[in-house]
């Protein structure tokens, strides 16, 4: 009764997703509605990203799935196992070996290349949700490119708290046109969206929306000209495990002390391995 399909989703649905992705790439930062099939993974657990990954997947692809910078995180493990079990493609934790990388809340530390596609899982695709929840009005605002409500919010925060209170999902302008929600990545990663050689795709399954940042696209955070964009500060701190500096670190508070570790565990493991190899040589 139950027939198996390569990469789970039926072929008509995959075709629809790929066509919508083409539209998204053609209009950088524009939100494209799609039908969004139900996945065996719950809504809100990465079904948008998953549908993109599955519809792009070919037999010779190599998939990496990461969550909060860690491929061993529960959700990443589940999604990776699911993708490999329905498609038979290779999986890796190594950023460099992957052709498609599905991620939640982080961009891998290792620089991406033109041969890679980064797929973000998105909970709230619409950047205007925090200032205007009505979808019909949101559509109008994008059409008019009138983002004054976002600017007012930024002004209010800056005047009261010295800076925007938005800690993640920081609004970004794509290719000097649409304002876009970059998914809940930290501010550190916002700067890394800009001019990326890799194609960056965003999928929101529950909200049924797709959007894209094509390779080498200008991405700028919403910011007044005379105010700097301040990212999370890890100056003078390094990973307790591998010693890396200048990357995004997890803060681990134990009684009486704070320790720092690489947020991207693959990056951390690789750094340790390289150091070990150097000693052995």
């Amino acid at each position, binding site marked *: 009764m139950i027939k198996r399909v390569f990469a789970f989703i039926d072929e008509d649905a995959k075709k629809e997703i790929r066509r919508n992705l083409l539209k998204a790439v053609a209009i950088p930062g524009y939100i494209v509605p799609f039908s969004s099939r139900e996945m065996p993974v719950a809504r809100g657990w990465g079904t948008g990203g998953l549908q993109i990954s599955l519809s792009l997947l070919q037999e010779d692809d190599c998939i990496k799935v990461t*969550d909060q910078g860690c491929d061993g995180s529960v959700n990443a493990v589940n999604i990776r196992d699911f993708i490999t079990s329905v498609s038979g493609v290779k999986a890796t934790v190594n950023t460099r070996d992957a052709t498609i990388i599905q991620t*939640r*809340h982080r961009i891998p530390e290792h620089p991406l290349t033109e041969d890679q596609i980064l797929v973000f899982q998105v909970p709230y695709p619409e950047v205007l949700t925090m200032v205007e929840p009505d979808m019909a009005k949101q559509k109008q605002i994008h059409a008019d490119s009138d983002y004054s409500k976002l600017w007012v919010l930024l002004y209010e925060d800056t005047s009261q708290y010295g800076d925007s*209170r938005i800690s993640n999902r920081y609004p970004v302008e794509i290719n000097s046109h649409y304002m876009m929600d970059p998914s809940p990545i930290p501010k550190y990663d916002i700067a890394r969206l800009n001019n990326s050689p890799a194609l960056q795709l965003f999928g929101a399954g529950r909200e049924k929306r797709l959007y894209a940042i094509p390779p080498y696209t200008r991405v700028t955070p919403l910011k007044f000209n005379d105010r700097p964009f301040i990212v999370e500060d890890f100056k003078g701190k390094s990973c307790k495990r591998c010693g890396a500096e200048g990357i995004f670190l997890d803060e681990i508070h134990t009684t009486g002390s704070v320790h720092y570790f690489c947020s991207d565990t693959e990056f951390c493991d690789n750094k340790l391995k390289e150091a070990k190899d150097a000693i052995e040589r």
Partner: protein
Amino acid sequence: MSYVAIKGGTDAINASKRLFEKRIQPEKQLPEKDLLTTLPHSCDRIIAEGALYSDALAVKALLRSGGDLLEAAFYLRAHRSTCRRAGIAKEINSDDIRITRRISSAFKDIDGGQILGPSCDYIIRLFQVQSSDGGKISDIAKTSVIRAPSALNNLRDRDMVLLLENTEGEAVDVSRQFPLPPYPRSALMQVMSRGETGSMLAFAYTSMRGYGDVHPTIGDLRTGMAAISFTHPFTDGKVKIGEIRTTFCETVGSFQRDPKDGKLRLSNGFGFCLGHNETRAISMSILDLAIHNQGYSMGGADIAANPEIIINHIDGIESMGFTNHFKLPHYVTFQADLHVLDKARSSCSD
């Protein structure tokens, strides 16, 4: 000081899955065919909210999920994504269904009669064993095929019912293309026909008890078997491919000025679902009534009449999934939150 144990999740996940399996004791599970006959309402809810009419899969899903109906409906929806659409069946007219139960609270005497059929409405909910009175069930109920026109047709014939203008050509299928606002009525109806029973009930309830204007009268509520016909792919002829359990509800609301000719007519709402679920069909008809007919809201916020609220918030698969996603790690975003709080605190203390 060891490295925080966010790695090595695979073993823990597998153990968690095994524990769940063990907990629902598959070796003691009831035979599938008995589940369908003894828990028909569970199965019907799974079928309706899962938006896939399959008794066999509904029962499997019920067992797999340990009786969690939201989870079970989710199995059906997920399976749906692997199936190609074969085509579009012919329209069903609710007047033509083979009735198992049919009531009207608008009229006492209706063409075809009030047929109570099987219902738990008249049962006193006591745990003490109450044997039925042993009375006879009439042969008509057991043997004859009953069909009847809607109890509202009489009003329609007298030109007293407002007919909404149909501005859509073909009905939207939200599983192929989710529409942008303004939402076509067909899209809203489809989302509602597979919406979560409790969510729809709650929104409909807001409308009836103060935050809205819907004081409905049930014109015609019916459950029964509807024949599904399909165009034969080779002969192009119309063929019946089976019957499905369905529930229909038509409710009557307040009178409105008909925009077509300015005459006063009664508004009405329509509810439908796969399987037998009267609460859900009534709720849907009330929401349809609220959304598509202007009300005189007393409570201020008329949330049940807002298509934006209804279309985006009644799907159980979506709301359940998203609510549970908060169990996923949010280490990075929460750390970023704390960074911003620190910055704001130092800015405010300057």
